């Protein structure tokens, strides 16, 4: 199992000036391809701006945040017998290019507006992948580092706060257990900071940002605040703060649990992402529902203390993850959605019906369980859900991570094929164990000399992991699988051929 390693990802060369290689043909490495793609997105965005330019118009001070409601419009009056259709989840799209543009506008002002910069950075939700991508987009567009520009405009506590919002998952405190938060102390700090017109807004931000937008933690702080003051936090904020100050405070405690968030680099990606989500539901019977993943983890890890599970939170999808998800589901198309009716799997209910993007998993189901920084994906049988975690998307679009993967995009896609196999191929596990003399049972290697080995090191973990690794190899690197593990290739070939037999 190739391990993703931040330290080994080649970093882009720091550009100090715009490249002027018009007459030089540069080799198209993955890095240059990515840069080319990025620049095209930036240029497209700039062309759009010019097309939409209104002379004399007042440009928005806040980057575009599109909240797209897709789904059936609910009628106020229902006809007799009419069934209320479940409303599709709202989709919130954040465009990196817009955020980078807005940040650059703010940071090139003589006096940069702290709150507006905070609002921009908070859109990244302190998510490592999002922060990294924003930095890349910013640098590709403006040639300078975002951190450098921020550090040039702010200092002291303001800079410290903005750096917290730019936490990229690599710093020591990025995974600080929120369970250590003392809600009583936080409530007292808020009570002191919120004081009508004298409200210390920066103190309020500093307290609220510690929650990292985690719904259960926000609820606990609200409860502690009410116990302390006898009043509602949201009401007090609305009374004491206004304008952008209030926008940012609300942003820090927003409840995203009913919303799918997607980060994109262009309006085209935003449109495509929305279409993909609809397509997955209509065609494959798989709903993109991140809160379902959080709920599934809580259900499947009952021994982990609530103070830990309260830290679970949904995360924003990267556009490329949705593309990878669509490709992964295509591998199993014959046994998904309406297609399943014509397959040999028609008698059994579909094993995967929701997919989720969740920030972190849990490492074990015990009292000592904690947030996990290693898990890339996990299948939850009890909820028919597969969760993709932030760890799995780190370095998305970057260079090769080694092993059989040409890029991290491939790693993401293969992780998705792997997780889907845990659900959709579970019915084949017993047959797989019987067919592979490598395994004594689902969990135990037989120790038989000369047995055909799993296609990857991670496949040796258990027969179920072996089958999932075999599946991703079959769909993604069939020639490699056929060569290295012919028994497994034949097993998958038979399995897939049988799908076509109702």
């Amino acid at each position, binding site marked *: *199992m190739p*391990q993703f390693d931040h330290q080994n990802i080649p970093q882009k060369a720091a550009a100090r000036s715009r490249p002027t290689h018009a007459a030089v043909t540069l080799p198209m490495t993955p890095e240059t391809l990515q840069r080319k793609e990025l620049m095209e997105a930036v240029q497209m965005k700039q062309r759009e701006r010019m097309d939409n330019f209104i002379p004399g118009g007042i440009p928005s001070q806040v980057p575009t945040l599109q909240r797209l409601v897709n789904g059936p419009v609910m009628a106020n009056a229902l006809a007799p017998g009419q069934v209320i259709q479940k409303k599709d989840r709202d989709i919130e799209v954040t465009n990196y290019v817009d955020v980078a543009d807005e940040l650059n506008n703010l940071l090139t002002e003589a006096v940069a507006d702290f709150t507006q910069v905070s609002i921009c950075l908070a859109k990244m939700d302190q998510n490592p992948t999002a922060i990294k991508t924003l930095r890349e987009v910013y640098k590709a567009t403006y040639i300078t580092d975002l951190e450098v520009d921020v550090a040039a405009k702010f200092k002291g506590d303001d800079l410290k706060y903005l750096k917290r919002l730019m936490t990229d998952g690599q710093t020591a405190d990025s995974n600080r257990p929120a369970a250590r938060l003392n809600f009583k102390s936080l409530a007292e700090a808020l009570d002191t900071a919120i004081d009508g017109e004298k409200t210390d807004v920066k103190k309020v931000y500093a307290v609220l940002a510690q929650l990292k937008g985690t719904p259960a933690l926000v609820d606990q702080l609200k409860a502690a605040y009410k116990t302390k003051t006898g009043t509602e936090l949201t009401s007090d904020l609305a009374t004491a703060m206004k304008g952008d100050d209030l926008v940012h405070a609300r942003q820090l405690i927003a409840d995203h649990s009913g919303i799918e968030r997607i980060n994109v680099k262009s309006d085209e990606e935003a449109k495509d992402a929305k279409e993909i989500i609809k397509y997955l539901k209509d065609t494959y019977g798989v709903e993109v529902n991140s809160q379902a993943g959080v709920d599934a983890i809580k259900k*499947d*890890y009952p021994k982990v203390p609530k103070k830990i599970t309260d830290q679970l939170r949904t995360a924003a999808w990267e556009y490329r993850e949705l593309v990878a998800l669509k490709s992964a589901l295509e591998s199993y198309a014959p046994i998904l959605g309406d297609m399943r009716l014509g397959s040999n799997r028609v008698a059994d209910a579909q094993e995967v019906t929701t997919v989720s993007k969740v920030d972190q998993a849990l490492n*074990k*189901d*015990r*009292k*000592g369980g904690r947030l996990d920084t*290693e*898990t*890339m*994906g*996990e299948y939850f049988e*009890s909820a028919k859900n597969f969760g993709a975690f932030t760890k*799995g998307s780190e370095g998305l679009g970057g260079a090769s991570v080694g092993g059989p993967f040409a890029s991290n995009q491939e790693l993401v896609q293969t*992780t998705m094929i*792997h*997780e889907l196999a845990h659900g959709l191929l579970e019915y084949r596990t017993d047959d797989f164990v019987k067919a592979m003399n490598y395994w*004594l*049972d*689902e*969990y*135990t*290697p*037989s*120790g*038989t*000399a000369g047995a055909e080995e799993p296609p990857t090191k*991670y496949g040796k*973990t*258990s027969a*179920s992991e072996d089958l*999932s690794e075999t599946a991703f190899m079959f769909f993604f690197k069939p020639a490699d699988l056929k060569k290295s593990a012919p028994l497994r290739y034949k097993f998958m070939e038979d399995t897939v051929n049988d799908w076509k037999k109702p």
Partner: protein
Amino acid sequence: MHKILALLSLLLALTSGGVAGCHSHRGASSSASTKATTMNSAMIEIPALKPWLDRRALTQAQVREILKPRADQEDAARSYQKLKPAAWMHNPTVDAAHYYFQAEKLVMIYLSDKSVMGLLVPADLEAALGPCPQDHQLRSRAGKTANQYAYPEVGIVYAVEADKVKFVELFPPCSLKEYLANIYETVGPWLR
């Protein structure tokens, strides 16, 4: 207390004929003070496992006599976790268990057959063996949410996931330190 536990473990090992996986009890370091560590393995009452608990003192020849395995149901060069090499014997028509031997001595009886596991209830096992101390609760190859409850002092380890027993290991009693050193294969991270 530690000395008493160590002596008890030593006594258990001697009465069971010793085990290659658990060679010596001089290194016993378990601090557990559970029902299991304070009783003789013969005192353990788990009806569903009784036939196999009683067989832990048998030799390879004695087990062969019971199982009467075909040639393909026996292999002199297999392994079980860290027990390498180990002779393996299994005849499902006679017995659901897999037997492993080193130097003719039985070192492991492994059970995961669903018909047997279906008879086991985690709460009943805990009632029979006592609460499992934290340091005896191990990560399990049975899955990311599975836990392995180790009572090596009476030669019993079982894995549970979603309140279902996934497998059971029965072996001549030894200390936790010896179980970890000689039998238990560390479970790697569940990455995906």
